[in-house]
């Protein structure tokens, strides 16, 4: 693919709001995970909760979108000056030429979970103030974002569980390359809800400890939430130091709904496709941000795929011990973390991980260290066997 410019980007997770908070936490090796106290949830697990989401107020004209997921969407958009950069792009290109491509796994389903507690005692009806389209539906965050900026062009949500907001980069890149749009708001937003917390617990995939990716004793994920966005544009001559999307790769496991292919075959296909798309070889990658959920099966399968392709020569880490697993937002959150490694010259460690699993032969980073990164690869894999790898680089 022709490289695309990330002309603006931002990330908000339990590490804090925006790039400065994120880089400071990653540099310090700090985790944002805390024992789970979300809503009325009673589970022995840890979570990555974003502070202040419910204090966010949507504009009156968009009040119908009000739910935790869209509050976090707005919070993310209004961080690091991202919304202003979007408005600049709209002024340059026009409101039908800026597309919206956002990933999510559960959007605002929390709103429906809460509404089901308030059903009419006689009829069973949901309350009048519950709005399915603008809260629960998977498209709600994309439609909210489109309306927030008064856009009139193409928009879609991609919902492939935990690969969702990596795949948005690939979908937007296609339309930018075709010239059907001139800029794209890409990103992902997922928020804590009962479905995912109790759901991952039902699969025995949540840990009673803060998650420990790639640790020999890893035993499950810590569910997190987050919002991360990038503005993608074509750019013939990017300024030195700017961040580029170099390649995207997608594949399917065709194996199981909730377990990865044990040999990581789909994961390997996605990484190979991303390298092909970028016109790069394995020796060109300086850092890999692993999917690294901290489940025994994911890390073992991903580790096999990465080591089959890269050997143990490329420094890599999962940052989910810091952010938690932000599910449908993870792809975008970790793409932005890669952007920080490229601009700032550091390789993030893995808070929570103490003893790297000796069965997984990778150059796994326990602690953050300085280092020049010119090209970074990031993996995102989801239920249903959906895999996506992205390669980001820095312009010379």
């Amino acid at each position: 693919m022709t490289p695309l410019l990330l002309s603006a980007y931002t990330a908000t997770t339990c590490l804090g709001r925006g790039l400065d908070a994120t880089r400071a936490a990653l540099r310090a090796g700090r985790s944002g995970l805390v024992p789970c106290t979300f809503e009325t949830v009673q589970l022995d697990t840890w979570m990555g909760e974003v502070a202040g989401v419910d204090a966010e107020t949507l504009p009156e004209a968009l009040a119908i979108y009000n739910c935790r997921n869209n509050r976090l969407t707005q919070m993310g958009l209004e961080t690091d000056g991202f919304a202003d950069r979007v408005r600049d792009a709209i002024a340059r290109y026009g409101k039908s030429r800026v597309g919206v491509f956002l990933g999510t796994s559960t959007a605002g389903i929390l709103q429906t979970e809460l509404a089901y507690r308030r059903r009419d005692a006689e009829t069973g009806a949901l309350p009048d103030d519950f709005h399915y389209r603008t809260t629960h539906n998977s498209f709600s965050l994309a439609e909210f974002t489109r309306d927030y900026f008064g856009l009139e062009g193409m928009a879609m949500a991609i919902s492939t569980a935990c690969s969702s907001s990596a795949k948005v980069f690939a979908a937007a890149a296609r339309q930018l390359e075709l010239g059907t749009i001139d800029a794209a708001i890409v990103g992902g937003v997922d928020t804590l809800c009962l479905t995912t917390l109790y759901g991952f617990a039902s699969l025995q995939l949540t840990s009673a400890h803060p998650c420990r990716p790639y640790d020999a004793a890893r035993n499950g994920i810590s569910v997190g939430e987050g919002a991360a966005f990038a503005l993608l544009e074509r750019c013939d001559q990017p300024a030195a130091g700017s961040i580029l999307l170099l390649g995207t790769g997608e594949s399917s496991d065709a194996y199981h709904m909730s377990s990865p292919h044990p040999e990581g075959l789909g994961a390997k296909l996605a990484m190979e496709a991303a390298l092909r798309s970028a016109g790069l070889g394995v020796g060109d990658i300086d850092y890999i941000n692993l999917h690294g959920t901290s489940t025994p099966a994911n890390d073992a399968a991903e580790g096999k795929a990465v080591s089959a392709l890269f050997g143990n020569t490329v420094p890599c880490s999962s940052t989910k011990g810091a952010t938690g697993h932000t599910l449908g937002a993870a792809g975008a959150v970790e793409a932005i973390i890669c952007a920080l490694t490229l601009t700032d010259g550091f390789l993030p460690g893995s808070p929570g991980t103490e003893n790297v699993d000796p069965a997984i032969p990778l150059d796994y980073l326990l602690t953050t260290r300085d280092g020049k990164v010119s090209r970074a690869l990031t993996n995102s894999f989801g239920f249903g066997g959906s895999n996506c790898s992205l390669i980001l680089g820095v312009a010379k």
Partner: protein
Amino acid sequence: MSRPLTAWIEGIGFLAPGLPDWPTARAVLRGEQTYENAPSVLPAPAILPPAERRRASRVVKLTLAVGLEAAAHAGADVATLATVFSASGADGHNCHALCEQLATDDRQISPTRFHNSVHNAAAGYWGIATGAMAPCQVICAYDASFGAGLIDALGQVVLDRQTTLLIAYDSEYPEPLFAKRPVPDVAGVALLLTPERSERSLASITVTPASTVAEPIGDAALEALRVSIPALRALPLLQKLARGEAGQVCLDYLPPMQLQVDIGLC
């Protein structure tokens, strides 16, 4: 500098209330048969092992039915196809069961219900059933889901030169969600799209943005389906294909953006 969003259609799959497959829909859209409304009939998916076949949910049966019909129509090997699934919602019955249980004191939901709750559940089962390891996209754009799926599928066909199966589908919610989102029944449309013309090509399509109004379907009952089930926003295009007519149609997409489809015959 824009490159056209264009592809060749080699196969069509269809299932809607009263229209169990594409040959029936084609006859009705050609005016050779009158439309009679009836609940959608979902065939048992022969591609699944017997135990899985019994457990398969309505959306899994639906997507396998229309996807396999389109692939068979084109004589394509499903294991090699990239796919784009586009749906206005996930499995409504499964979602209702989860929300109902999470509103009680016993929140120990079933792990199967949880992994079936993801928007890409039908796409996941498609991969398991067909063995396809190619890219698989899963989109939601509420009422604009057919158009969004078509845009992304054409992007993959044009840029990656990859034969791509678009499966647009929707299913109903039970009450009380049905009152908030009244999709009346399951329905799906599948199009097998190729980058090159072949002896199997049925027609070419080229999609461009428009601001015109989608033409209604003449039959009032079919028009009611078009506006109540998002995947069936494709009906004006399918009517042209059924009748073997070249020309233009406008499809409802995302207001104010509409999609103009130019159809060329083979």
